[in-house]
């Protein structure tokens, strides 16, 4: 979105495994950043002692952002995570709306804010759903994903039942990743997921990410695949096609009439 369209994009890492952070930052920069500016855990948790560094970050959450790329005045930033995010999962009380309140201070500066979540249901997922307008589901076409899809649809239903405004999160759809295209079992899994998605009235993207060793190598090189010299053209353009479809879906969903208003949170 940032590379091809020049949008201001924020990537929020909300996974205690913090792979998104590890992908876009080298470990030395991360250590300096964590020491001097903090991570999302510092913004969400209540530490026993608020030192000067955390006071600055709490008063100005933008200070915790790491600039991944900036071009022609448009930015691609990261709100990094670290292992201490797991503390929130262990102590979930009164956390549901914290991320939304935090992002309210930052989101006006961006065209798109992506929140990277773990695929497990936890208070972090609830926080992300609360703070989000849309949900996109990347999925490998295999048996575990079929089961995971069933779990996720239940999670969304539970969230909507408990959420004051059930129309808040719209599901953009499922996008297949790591598709090899040469396996009957894989094809069968895709058919099953598409059938399950149709039953839940969830869209399945036409574009997908094909499996490529270049992805593995680009992760190791900490370089977006479309900036590498070794990736095949199709691998490089696949992400762009998914981004185009994502925008089109957001446009379509934002124009769709709302079924009815829910309760106000206030």
């Amino acid at each position, binding site marked *: 979105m940032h590379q091809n369209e020049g949008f201001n994009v924020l990537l929020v890492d909300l996974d205690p495994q913090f792979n998104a952070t590890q992908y876009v930052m080298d470990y030395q920069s991360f250590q300096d950043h964590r020491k001097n500016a903090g991570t999302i855990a510092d913004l969400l948790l209540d530490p026993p002692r608020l030192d000067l560094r955390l006071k600055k970050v709490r008063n100005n959450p933008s200070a915790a952002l790491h600039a991944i790329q900036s071009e022609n005045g448009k930015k691609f930033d990261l709100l990094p995570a670290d292992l201490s995010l797991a503390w929130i999962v262990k102590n979930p009380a009164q956390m549901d709306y914290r991320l939304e309140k935090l992002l309210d201070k930052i989101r006006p500066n961006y065209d798109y804010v992506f929140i990277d979540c773990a695929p497990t249901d936890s208070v972090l997922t609830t926080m992300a759903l609360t703070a989000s307008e849309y949900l996109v589901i990347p999925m490998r076409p295999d048996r575990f994903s079929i089961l995971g899809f069933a779990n996720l649809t239940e999670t969304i239903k539970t969230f909507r039942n408990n959420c004051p405004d059930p129309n808040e999160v719209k599901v953009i759809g499922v996008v297949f990743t790591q598709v090899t295209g040469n396996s009957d079992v894989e094809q069968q899994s895709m058919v099953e997921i598409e059938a399950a998605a149709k039953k839940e009235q969830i869209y399945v993207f036409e574009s997908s990410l094909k499996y490529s060793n270049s992805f593995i190598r680009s992760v*190791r090189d900490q370089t977006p695949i479309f900036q590498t010299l070794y990736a095949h053209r199709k691998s490089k353009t696949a992400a762009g096609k998914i981004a185009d479809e994502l925008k089109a879906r957001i446009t379509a969903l934002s124009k769709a009439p709302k079924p009815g208003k829910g309760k106000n949170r206030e």
Partner: protein
Amino acid sequence: MNNPKVHAILGDIHKMLATYGTSDFLNASHYPGMPKSIRLALRALSREADSTLNVIGLRKSSSSRDQRGFPRTERRRILELLRRSPYFENTRTLAAFARDMGIKINVNPKDGREKIGNRIAGSIEKLPDNSRNRILDSLASPRDTQTQGWIDVIKSSAH
């Protein structure tokens, strides 16, 4: 033995020892994709280059061996490898490295990196050849320091 090839080989080796220093051979051993046998040979040359310095009197210490009878150069070389590795980041990463390598050392809260590093180097020095070389390999190997660096970040966060 009067084999001309043997003389030629020994002559080339002495020429290399006269031209390059300890750190030159050590840096060469860090080159990516280096076969293990060549890496060990370069490290041996590094040790030899250091003892050559000893012979021509550039070392301050009058004894080339410590109190336990081990060559002082070996421990210093291991300590130098440790200093250059990502494990020397702080005392926690050093302690985690020792733990992962199965090396038991005492770590007091007030101990700094040099003290802990010295203890680790001393323990590595006393290990049997296979174990010592395995650990030195992991210290000297240039493969993917980012992955190793991130592993150390995760481990130090967990403790």
